Each structure stands twice: as C-alpha cells, then as structure tokens.
C-alpha cells in the first residue's frame, strides 16, 4: 500500500463550493491524461471525520483510482473538516442530501463521462438518498449501510448514543445523580427492566412461533433506492463486515424484501461480506480489502477511463 503513494499520477485541486447555507471544502483529484473519464465522489461516515477518512483511506483510494484513469472527489460534510456550518448529530433518517447534490453538481462541471458514488454507513445512506436524482450515475459503492431508518441507523448505535451522548451530558449534574440514586428510581428500575426484557423476548418468540416475520422495520430509505438502482441497471458494490452492528439487520432483511431485491438484481449487485468489522475501519486489513474490492469492481465492470456512459 505504501508504494502507491510514491507515484502521484493525479492533480489534486482544493475547492470550496456552496451547499445550501454552507460552504463545503473538497479536493478534486484529476487523473493524468486528457481522455474521457468518470469521477467517483467519496463520502465518509457520520461523525466528525474529515475528507481523508480514517487512516487516509480516501486519499489512498483517490490515488489508486487515478492510476485507473478515474477522477475522484472527496469532501467534508457541512459542520466537519474545513467546511462551514455546525452539525451535532448524524441521523440516518436525515442524510445530507444537499451536500451530496452540491458535490455532484461540482463534479458535473468537470466534464466527466459519468458519476460513481461511494459512501460509508451514514455516507452510504446519503448516497442512496440521491441515486435516483443523478442522470449519469454509473455505479454505487455502499459500505456498511444501515438498513433501518432509525436516527442512528441501528439499535446498537442507538443504545451507544443513548448511553454515551445523552448520558454524558446528564450524568454529572447533581440533580440527575440524586434522582437516579434515589430509592424510588432504583425500585422502578428493578421492577421495569426485567418486565421490558420479558416482553421483548415474548414478542420475538411469538413471531417465530407463527413462522412469519415482519419486515416493517426495514427502512424505505434503504430499500426503495436500492430497488431503484436495480431498476435502472446500475452496478452496485455492497460491503458489510460480519461484526458490523447493522449486518445482523441486513441478514434478517435478506429473508424478506432485501432478499427480493438482491434476487432481482442478480450480478448487478455485488455483495461482499468480510469477516470481522468493516464499519469504523478500525482494522487495517478491512481498509485494504475494501480498497482492493473497489478497485477490482471498477475495473471488472468497465467503469474505468474510456467507458461509455450508460
């Protein structure tokens, strides 16, 4: 991986651009040569990451794409990195559609043959929110996209947020501490928690006993655009890690409507499930494997420089 960085066959141009009330920052990497080429717009996950993504993932990928003759554009969401604005929460049910639309518009102005979009988690849901609005979309890469339309994408994330974020703000307040340590509060917890767990377990057992499974929880923000990609014949690379919190949702959803979409898609959707965690990219092997998969996918699908737009 380190060898790639020594040959920079691209011209990297910083750019500020408007997106609604904010000004975003991005870096456009133009591959060498004058021939026609597509451009991949890369979105990070939610959280105050920068356009480099974890461990320079987007920087390295941009340089590898340049070697294939593919331009790329990475940018900071509003409220992150060098962009203006403020964002305190990244909600899966409120993707940053305006940011992506502005980025795509900028890339459009660079005389590219078509668009490739790549997003991680929240970024993947933001990609999905726009796929039906991009006429020259040639491909989509979705890494660990949450299935549900919950604000935080999955129950585990919700629990983490409730535990860490809200709790962090409240727990040091003396009044809150006193209330939680009070006898009535302790007794209420003792009464409530086992009953809530029992109810949850009973609901699960009832569904299994009936032999039917309800899929109302599968987010339309995931399912509808995924179907849309299939209907338009747009190649999609979908990657999960077996230890991603949202992967269990994906596996369950495959027994229902997501499986229907995958079945209809056939080879159009290329699914890779990697051992261990991918979401968060806190392992080097996951970073390298995902980069290799993206490069192989664009190459095998004929999406590299010179390919005609769909």
């Amino acid at each position, binding site marked *: 991986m*380190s060898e790639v*960085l*020594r040959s*920079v066959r691209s011209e*990297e*141009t*910083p*750019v*500020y651009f408007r997106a609604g009330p904010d*000004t975003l*920052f991005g*870096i456009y990497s133009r591959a060498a040569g004058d021939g026609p080429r597509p451009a991949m717009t890369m979105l990070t*996950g*939610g*959280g*105050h*990451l*920068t*356009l*480099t993504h*974890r*461990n*320079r993932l987007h*920087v390295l990928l941009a340089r590898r794409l340049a070697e294939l003759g593919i331009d790329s554009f990475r940018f900071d969401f509003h*409220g*992150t*990195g*060098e962009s*203006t604005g*403020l*964002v*305190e*929460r*990244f909600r899966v049910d409120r993707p940053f559609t305006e940011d992506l639309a502005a980025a795509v518009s900028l890339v459009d102005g660079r005389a590219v043959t078509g668009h490739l979009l790549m997003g991680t988690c929240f970024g993947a849901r933001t990609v999905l929110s726009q796929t039906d609005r991009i006429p020259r979309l040639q491909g989509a890469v979705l890494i660990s996209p949450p299935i549900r339309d919950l604000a935080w994408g999955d129950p585990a994330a919700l629990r*983490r947020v409730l535990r*860490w*974020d809200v709790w*962090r703000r409240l727990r*040091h307040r003396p009044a809150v501490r006193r209330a939680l340590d009070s006898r009535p509060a302790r007794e209420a917890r003792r009464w409530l928690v086992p009953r809530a767990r029992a109810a949850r377990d009973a609901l699960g057992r009832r569904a299994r006993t009936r032999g039917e499974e309800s899929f109302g929880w599968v987010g339309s923000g995931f399912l509808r655009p995924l179907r849309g990609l299939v209907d338009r014949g747009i190649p999609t690379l979908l990657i999960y890690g077996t230890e991603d919190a949202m992967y269990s949702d994906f596996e369950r959803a495959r027994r229902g409507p997501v499986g229907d979409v995958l079945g209809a898609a056939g080879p159009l959707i290329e699914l890779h499930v990697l051992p261990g965690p991918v979401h*968060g*990219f*806190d*392992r*080097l092997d*996951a*970073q390298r494997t995902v980069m290799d998969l993206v490069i192989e996918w664009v190459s095998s699908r004929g999406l590299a420089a010179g390919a005609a737009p769909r």
Partner: protein
Amino acid sequence: METAVLVDEASGTRQESGFLGPPGARLFATWTFPARRAASGGVVVCSSIHPEFTKNYRREVLVARALAGRGLATLRFHYRGAGNSDGDTADLTLETMADDARRAVEWLAERTGGGPLGFLGTRLGALVAATAAAEVEGAPLALWEPVHQGDRYTREAFRARRMHRLRRREELGPSAEALLEELRTLGSVEVLGYELALGLHESLATVRLEQLTGDAPRPVLLVEFSLGKELRPDYAALASRWRERGWPVTASLFPHEDPWWFTDDTVDLSAAGVGPLVSRTADWLARTVVSGPTP
C-alpha cells in the same frame, strides 16, 4: 501554489486551503485570516496524528476562526505522511514533523509580514509545537492535553489497543512489552486501524516536552481535558517546573472526556461543548502573541 479561498462574512474570516512545497513533498495547509483587516500576528497549529488528528480537527478549525476574529492569522497543516499531504505514514518521525512545522512557520511569517507568532500544539503535536517554538524567541505556546513524554504515546496506543479488545469481549492479546518487541521486529504495529511505525516510536522514545521548549522564557497555556477538579499530577509538576524557571504558565481544565484512540468519531461541537475551550485558547493566544516576548 493553487489555493481555494473562502470568505465567510458570518465569521469575518478568510480561509485559504491548498498544497505547498515541491511535488512528492507537498503539505496540505489552510490559512485563516481576519477578512476585513490585516493580521496583527499569527499562530501555527501543530496537530496530532492517527485518530487524535481526526478528533481535534474541527476544534482546531474553530480556534483558527476564533483567532481570526481576534485579529490573528493561523496556519494549520498536515504533516508529510498524514492527512492530505504527500508522503508515506511509515516515514513520519518527530524530526520530519518538526521540519514541516518549520516550513509552516516560514510560510506564515511571509503572509503576516514578520509579525509576532505563537503556537498551538495538540496532543502529540505539543512536542512538534515546542520544537518549533523554541526557535522563535518568547513565542507563546498553547498546549491541549500535551504528550509530554514521548514514549508515553506508544504506550497509550498499546493500552488503547488492548482495551479495545476487552470492549469487544476478545482476549487482551499481546502485552505492551510484547507489542514493543513486535514493533522492533516487524517495523510497525497496527493500532485500531492505524500503523504505528518503529521510526516514529524511536524518534519519540527519549523526548521530553520541557527539554524541547528550551530555556528562554515564554508564556504557556496548559489545557487538560478532564472532568476532574484539579490538574493531574504530572501536568501539575510540569507547570511547576516551568514556573520555577520564571515562565508565566496558565493551567486550565476543559471539562471533557476524550478517549483519544477510540473509534467514536463524533465530537461534541456544541457551543456548550467546545465553546469554552475555543474561546479560552483564542483569548489567551490573542493576548500573549500581540503582547510580544516575555521580558
């Protein structure tokens, strides 16, 4: 140098971002200036690396904008081998980071007409800031949660790696000593998706912040991120030693917990969350940079 320019009327700032230096050794850098007046001085921000780079990024951007509002220019940059800059992460050492900081000092001095300079060093960047500041007489030095003993950086990284495994209900894995041996043998060790290279570790191993700052007195702002009520003992001792040398040292607690190496990438950037840190740092730098070297 090609830069992208943002003039933000709301914050009264002008921001220029681009790549500086020769191909293959370019640094990505962002200047922030007051939009409507000449800067009365400048501040070089020396960031940390690995996940600390990401965690503090936005806070550093906000400080730069706050400093512009107080009449100071700022230069933030990515070291070679980090962020958007050229270079390989495996080649990062304290020496290369300090060299990059020196280039940043030159560039900022050019743009501010040689006005007074100060430094902000965050976490590992504190060692870089101290090295660069030692070459600028009396330059104020603001430090956020500084790594003041270089070898602690590696040890903290290894501890975080083991704790991460614990949180995932895995076995702890190799001890810190075993990881150090692996680092020496293989040349790098993975820590939570980052490659910690032997060169970096060796360049930090015997380094001490107070030795890097030199002997000439300068004002210091030492900020600890803590929910406690008192400065932790090693920071208190460090501040004492500087004071004994006649340095004006301001110690401050920013009530915040930040597990630097962990993968919760969301940072509390609300006004209540980060406002005090940004304003306190910007106020201190604005006051000390403009007032000139400590007599």
